């Protein structure tokens, strides 16, 4: 049998495209409608996705209230309660939620995810993040955001405490945490919930190599994806682990339709919906300048003072604007629409070709699929791309196992 790829359905309110909520085929009330999520979960399960994946932040995504009010990302469900509701309305699909090591305690988090694991019969996973936003930090004390290294040291200890608790151990006494008792819940039906991570920094990769079962990453090109894949798998031996003990699943944002022209049209339609304020604000933050909005939007990018923090990224943007003759508005839409993830616009065959190339080229074990808007674009992926992957023998036609670990081909921890 050909090796098969793993697929996650990354759910995010109205959609991953920043202007998704304005699209007539997106469900604009997604963030307050539990039935919307029930329907998405059933679609993903019927298509045999390995898991649903929920991003999270304990706070607003955007500090500027005016900009925030032009996106749909300021309100939504809290993912652990959301997935607990979905757990008893689905029977096979994995349920992965993000939660922060900076604003939780290991005992409480381990207990909550274990409960989700029991509710779902062994289908839960935790995506560990350290939370890099000042907005979140302000909801948890006056001290502000802790430095990167401190956050990762806390995360390392946190992960160690949680995995210990999931394996029935009692007690943890460390630098950041102390836990006296073992968990008062029985052992997980899949041995332990699945550990997912996304950190791309050097310490982030080491933490993943040591503890993660699944790694979610952003990679634009094949070369980037391959380099990350080889680097991370290469780090695992140091921790006594086999390369296959981690599934690396880069994010992919497909826009798929029956014909390539239709797919392009669909994408352009979304790009047109990006409010200028939102696009320019995002572009400004990319360029590390604050007064971009003073310049005519249909004119070229002005000459920029050299920025301190992000020289290479600024240079990249400037170069692209000069090369393609893009106006500020066009450039703003381009960046707001892509946001660092790999986008494929095309037919099911084209999308499947690209996924297959990265999978078989040793740059990915699977993909976390980020539909532009919901429910339409998840439906499109499920009805067009999944059958194409199945025809090629690259994706399952039926679930083989009952737990998330079984779907992912992961060992049951002792």
């Amino acid at each position, binding site marked *: 049998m050909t090796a098969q790829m793993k697929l996650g359905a990354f759910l995010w309110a109205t959609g991953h495209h920043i202007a998704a909520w304005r699209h007539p085929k997106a469900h604009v009330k997604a963030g307050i409608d*539990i039935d919307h999520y029930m329907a998405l979960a059933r679609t993903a399960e019927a298509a045999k996705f390995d898991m649903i994946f929920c991003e999270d932040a304990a706070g607003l995504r955007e500090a500027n209230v005016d900009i925030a*009010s032009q996106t749909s990302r300021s309100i939504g469900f809290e993912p652990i309660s959301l997935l607990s509701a979905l757990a008893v309305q689905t029977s096979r699909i994995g349920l992965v939620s993000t939660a922060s090591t900076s*604003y939780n305690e290991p005992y409480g988090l381990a207990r909550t995810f274990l*409960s*989700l694991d029991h509710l779902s019969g062994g289908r839960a996973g935790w995506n560990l993040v350290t939370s890099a936003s000042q907005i979140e930090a*302000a*909801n948890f004390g*006056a001290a502000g955001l802790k430095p990167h290294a401190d956050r990762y040291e806390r995360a390392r200890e946190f992960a160690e405490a949680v995995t210990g608790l999931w394996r029935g151990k009692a007690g943890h006494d460390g630098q950041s945490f102390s*836990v006296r008792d073992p968990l008062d819940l*029985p052992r997980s039906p899949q041995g332990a919930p699945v550990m997912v991570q996304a950190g791309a920094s050097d310490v982030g990769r080491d933490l993943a190599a040591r503890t993660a079962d699944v790694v979610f990453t952003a990679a634009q090109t094949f070369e980037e994806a391959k380099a990350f894949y080889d680097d991370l798998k290469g780090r695992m031996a140091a921790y006594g682990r086999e390369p296959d003990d981690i599934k690396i699943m880069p994010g992919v944002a497909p826009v798929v339709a029956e014909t390539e022209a239709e797919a392009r049209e669909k994408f352009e339609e979304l790009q047109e919906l990006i409010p200028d304020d939102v696009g320019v604000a995002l572009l400004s933050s990319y360029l590390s300048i604050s007064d971009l909005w003073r310049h005519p939007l249909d004119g070229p990018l002005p000459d920029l003072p050299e920025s301190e923090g992000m020289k290479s990224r600024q240079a990249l943007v400037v170069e692209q604007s000069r090369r393609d003759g893009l106006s500020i508005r066009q450039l703003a839409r381009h960046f707001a629409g892509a946001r660092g993830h790999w986008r494929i616009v095309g037919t099911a065959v084209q999308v499947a070709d690209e996924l297959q190339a990265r999978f078989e080229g040793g740059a990915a074990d699977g993909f976390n699929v980020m539909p532009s808007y919901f429910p339409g674009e998840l439906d499109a992926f499920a009805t067009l791309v999944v059958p194409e992957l199945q025809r090629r023998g690259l994706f399952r036609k039926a679930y083989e196992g009952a737990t998330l670990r079984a779907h992912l081909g992961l060992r049951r921890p002792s």
Partner: protein
Amino acid sequence: MTDGATTHLAASLNIALATGQALTFSDLAGFAREAEAAGLDMIILDDSAPHGAAPSSPFEATTLIAALATVTEKIGLVASASTIAHQPYNLARRFASLDMISHGRAGWNATLAQTPREAANFSRPDGFSADDFRRRSEEYIGIVQGLWQGWDADALLFDRDGGRFHDPQGMHLLDHKGEFFSVRGPLNVARSPQDAPVLVLSDLTEGDLDFAARTADVVLLDERAAAEDKACHGDLKRRVSACGREPDAVKILADISLTADGVSGLADRLEEKSFSKSCDGFNIRLPAQLSVFDDLIDRVLPELRRCGLLRENHPGTTLRSHLGLAGGGDQ
């Protein structure tokens, strides 16, 4: 809202106290549906095992009520959650989300007593002094209620053509800076369908009564002798009025513990208390043997119904409307 002569009825269950076989999700779903069919206002679920007991329940209470919300339609779902185990922002958010999932049927049961040993699992080996714990709990609960008010009911515009998802003026920072916590807000969950999740306070001492009068929607009080019960009820209602709230804005439920021995004489006890107006209703504390609950439904509730103490159906769709509380969302 007709609250009139009827009495409010809740049932509470600590799932961690099951002896022998743990209660499965299907047991608990059956219990919730039965309570719903019997017209109870709400069920209150607690998950704290006594120290040293072998693990008995596989579930944590907030995740459990999220799941139960999908298999019930009317009944209120209240989970106990500790102020030690969660940060206030996270807890406010969890319950706001539960309220959205249940279409306005969620409540938080906050205990004002420190659970022995719990803090030792949350990096606080020595716990808090009684005085610190009280001030911390009061600050904590104030933050949670404040976060629940962060979005105006009409803040979401969904204006696709105009490009405005929400009204920037309809979103409010909390900007809380206190002795124990600093929380900027706002919550990233929309306004509750019932205005705010219901706040239930339990394990109160004398010193908590003024705080409860200011903040609670429901107060659970231990059952005492009838005369003492009535005095306590009057005292708390006076304190509620003194805070400028309607006396009826806080419902006082007498905690009645049921043992596995059964329900004989219970109907008479409840009738007497109801007619003497010594409480607004009852919270029946169930043992983990759910067969006792069947006895309650089959033998006690029909009796209460005959005396007109129990309404037949849920009058509205939210927990606030069941309890006759303002801001019911569906009046």
